[in-house]
């Protein structure tokens, strides 16, 4: 069944189509939520809220760009909204304070599992984590991130640089330094 038909069926309130839609996108979107949240419980809440919004606003999808891209934007925006609501993004905990994470001196970079990489990201304070996610993984520019988080472009750059430095230390890989 093509995407258009699936969307039409979902908009008509067809429960089976909605379930199919959920099954298609939920795993990848849960991965997105896990990156923005502190823990699995919060990520679950983000996912739930995001899918409620997706179904409520599916009629607004204009078939411009991929459907997955649209769903991902809704998920990211939901996560950001929740973080903003709790003033999490203004939490300026210093990165240096967080010293509990284990360094992986002997592990080759490509042997890190997704779970391990996720744990590293989740160890970052929310502000740094959010900027890192948006820049390194979602591919937004610092200018866009500044607008999204209501911070200056410079703040976004510096937070990203510090997050990156911290992650490299944790990975113990000097070869990840830029040439």
């Amino acid at each position: 069944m093509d995407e258009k038909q699936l969307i039409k069926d979902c908009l008509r309130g067809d429960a089976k189509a909605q379930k199919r839609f959920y099954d298609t996108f939920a795993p990848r979107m849960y991965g997105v939520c896990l990156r923005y949240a502190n823990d699995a419980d919060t990520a679950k809440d983000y996912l739930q809220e995001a899918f409620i919004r997706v179904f409520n606003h599916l009629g607004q999808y204009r078939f411009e760009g991929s459907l997955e891209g649209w769903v991902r934007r809704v998920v990211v925006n939901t996560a950001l909204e929740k973080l903003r609501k709790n003033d999490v993004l203004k939490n300026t905990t210093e990165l240096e304070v967080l010293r509990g994470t284990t360094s992986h001196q002997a592990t080759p970079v490509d042997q890190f599992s997704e779970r391990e990489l996720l744990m590293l990201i989740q160890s970052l304070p929310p502000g740094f984590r959010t900027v890192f996610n948006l820049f390194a993984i979602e591919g937004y520019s610092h200018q866009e991130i500044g607008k999204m988080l209501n911070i200056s472009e410079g703040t976004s750059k510096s937070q990203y640089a510090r997050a990156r430095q911290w992650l490299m230390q944790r990975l113990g890989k000097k070869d990840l330094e830029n040439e």
Partner: protein
Amino acid sequence: MSNKEDKIAGLFGERLKNWAPEPPQGVWEAVVASQRRRRRIFIYRITAIAATLLLLIGLPFLLNRQPLELPTRQTSENHLNELITLPQDVTAEPITEQLDKKTANTLMPVVKTSKFVSDVAVAHNTVATQSEPSAGANESIDIPASDNTTDIAMAAESQEAVQQAVEEMLAKLRDENAANATDASESERKKPAIALVYNIAPAAITGQNGLFNNILNYRYGPDPFQGNMALETRYFKDVQESRLEAPFSAGLRFSLGVSKRLAFETGLSYTRLNTYTKTYPLDGVHLEYNQSIIYVGVPLGMRYDVLQTRILSIYTAQNVMAEKGLTAINSINKFEKDRNIGKKKLYEDVQGFQLSTTTSAGLGLNVHRYISFYAEGGLQIFYLNHTQPFNIRSSKKLWPVYQSGIRVNF
């Protein structure tokens, strides 16, 4: 620095961008439940709006409604006689002027027939008068004498038939009129009343994973007090207990009778919403947060008495209420082994409005000619919660509400 040249970005982006872990159990069920709930709220909302609009639109018509006035037997007969026997310039106007529209429409075919008969009779008189030799001939009249005789006979028969038909119809209308007159005396308007009202609603208690942390309950406006609490309690992880106390609400209600059973109601309402939050003790120290939000509201609605007896009345009511938050009184107390070691109190403005609709049914007990007690129960739906600070109405939009009071009837 572009993230294309950034190896850290490359590593994390490549491995995590399309990573698809198994989603947790229960999410889909919660999404479905939310969809159902949304549909239900939509229906409630539409119903409440429709009921309120219906009442508001219907109000002017109800207020302007006059009892039906119909002619008496004597006046009806007089008009009938005038209609049939008066000269040519007599029309059906007297009847249409004095009867109401319904009566006039009912009678119109008969009146038209009567007018025709009357015209024929008048023509006959004219012919009879002008056919006298001394009066001179009128060339415009060319009705033969024999035809005149036939017409007169027919007219006389028609007159009798019409008179009989009209009399029957008027008798029927008089009966209806009598019935309406009885109703009119019964539909005497309800007397104005003023009531002292006290509202109660259930409280809610939640632990750390309750209302604050439930993502579905984020239906409240930006509130610095709750924001600070979130930061100070590790996003409510340190919260041991949250208590959303039962709202206290009291006010005055004025009612104005529209008919014997229907009354228009408005008034003034004062409401206080308290939220109490306590953290787990850490090294014997715990925090207690209290927030009180004060609202003043104006209800607008209708009450309809389903049953009225000398002692009891049973009624239904529908109203809409707009409330404005006057202030939020926030306080934080720090306790060390139950000894208060720090206290902070601050006042904040409350932006926006809280709208609600209430559908209820109640029982009135007349204890005196002028005084009655009443109690009612119903459902209140709250809208625009997202403009308000967190309170008991943020957690659920639909709450049962009980109201009791004393009513003074004038």
